[in-house]
């Protein structure tokens, strides 16, 4: 690859970590055994995602997904799967809200300090706030995850 500085203008949104997770997602697979699954669909841009969740008591044991969409949505799904793994089910919605706030505005000043660490991991996606119409790409997998936790089959789109 060309030295990274020649791509500086492209990289503030598409950071290396996004390209990387977009290109080689670690969790992009249907789980063999799972407790819940749900789909998310953004007909406006054709993005589609399905999320499978295996619980571990009150926590999220493992997450897998299949996504068809842009690099942002695939990377977001992968970072999500990585980040929520092992977290309490009950905390996931708060994390989603914090992430959504960050995706919309670039930061989440009002966010619970307890979320600082996982939000940090998701921070590479915060650049989407400059592209309101791409925010949904980043949040779609989360909608599907929350739907799976709620036991609904389809994420309600924003």
């Amino acid at each position, binding site marked *: 690859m060309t030295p990274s500085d020649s791509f500086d203008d492209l990289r503030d949104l598409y950071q290396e970590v996004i390209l990387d997770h977009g290109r080689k997602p670690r969790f992009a697979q249907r789980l063999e055994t799972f407790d819940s699954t749900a789909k998310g669909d953004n*007909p*406006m*841009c054709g993005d589609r995602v399905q999320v499978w969740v295996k619980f571990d008591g009150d926590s999220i044991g493992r997450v897998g997904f299949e996504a068809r969409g842009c690099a942002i949505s695939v990377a977001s799904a992968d970072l999500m799967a990585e980040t929520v793994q092992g977290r309490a089910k009950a905390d996931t919605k708060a994390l989603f809200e914090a992430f959504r706030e960050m995706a919309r505005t670039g930061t989440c000043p009002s966010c619970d300090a307890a979320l600082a660490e996982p939000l940090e991991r998701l921070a590479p996606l915060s650049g989407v706030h*400059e*592209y*309101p*119409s*791409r925010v949904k790409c980043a949040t779609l997998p989360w909608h599907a995850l929350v739907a799976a936790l709620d036991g609904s089959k389809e994420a309600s789109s924003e």
Partner: protein
Amino acid sequence: MNAIDKSAGLDVARIRADFPILDQKIRGKTLVFLDSAASAQKPRAVIDAMRIAMETQYANVHRGLHWMSERTTEAYEAARDAVAALMNAKDRAEIVFTRNSTEAINLLAHSYGRGVMKRGQAVLISGMEHHSNIVPWQMLRDSHGIELRVADITDQGELDMADFEAKLADGRVGLVAITHMSNVLGTVTPAERIVALAHAHGAKVMFDGSQAIVHRKIDVQALGCDFYCWTGHKLYGPTGIGVLWGRRELLERMPPFLGGGDMISSVTYEQSTWAAVPHKFEAGTPAILEGIGLKAAIDYVQAIGYDAMVAHEASLTEHALARLASVPGLTILGQAQERGGVIAFAMEKAHAHDVATLLDRQGIAVRAGHHCAEPLMRRYNLDSTARASFGVYTTHAEVDALAAGLLRVREFFA
């Protein structure tokens, strides 16, 4: 302009400076513009907002992905927020943009009338409606077997509440569609009572607020109505944009009206599915520049404040009623208790069109004709009247000029 124009807390001189059009001569005379009820003039803020959008960030909205499209989408959707705040809507998704009030009412007649109402139900209007709130319901009646009822008005030009209630009594009225303020009589209808009676008889209520939005602070939650429509060009905004507000749960039950781009969720030849409200009702490239202009108009009006606008208008209207009473042979249509700054009148021995033309020669712009309210004219045995109407920029001196101009017309025809 005299001191009184400041008394209501409105600095009319300063406001007039915001409207470049007002400072001109017509046929050699100082312009006295008294036709705001037909369409209001545009403040610099509106003109500039549209110009700047075209000069700096214009692009089509929704799914643009590039910078100008994103910025234009934000600006256009900010207009929806501004409208929602203006009307105190619960939810921005309840604001549907249309071309004007007329299209808003037609949307309702198609989508709610044909899509939700059932054959044998009735729509109840009043005897003082604008054609735009008559004809769509006639077309619904003729194509869809919905009865059209008309509640009488009194000689004073107020809604006849006894007749209104009688026409609701059998419970078959599905929708009351009624003006919130008459564009001829100036009458403001008793919205809360209308809603209470209608709801008690199982009917939904739509107000045609085309005039009222300019003259009253509208709070749809306080009014308790189900639909409310108005038109941008009368609220100092551009042409080409209007508003239908509806309760979300009602809008969600309604089928779409126009089909096309932007209103779909997905399309196959077999079947299409619809976008969520409000986009379900907004097919094709919307009136983007007009939304941006409308937002500027709303910001302008909000900065002045409805309290000051309403007080100024009340003062002008009182003044005008007194001054016009001094013109011999002039009859004013309607004497409602609650009224706004729209005054229609007939002059003995002079046809309304001649009156309007002769005023125009003196630089005074009024409207003449049936004001798109033929059945109302007929109610008063008239073909046409002349009409003066006021805006935020109207001065007491202009009202005096009207009275003086009318005296000259009367002498001229004597």
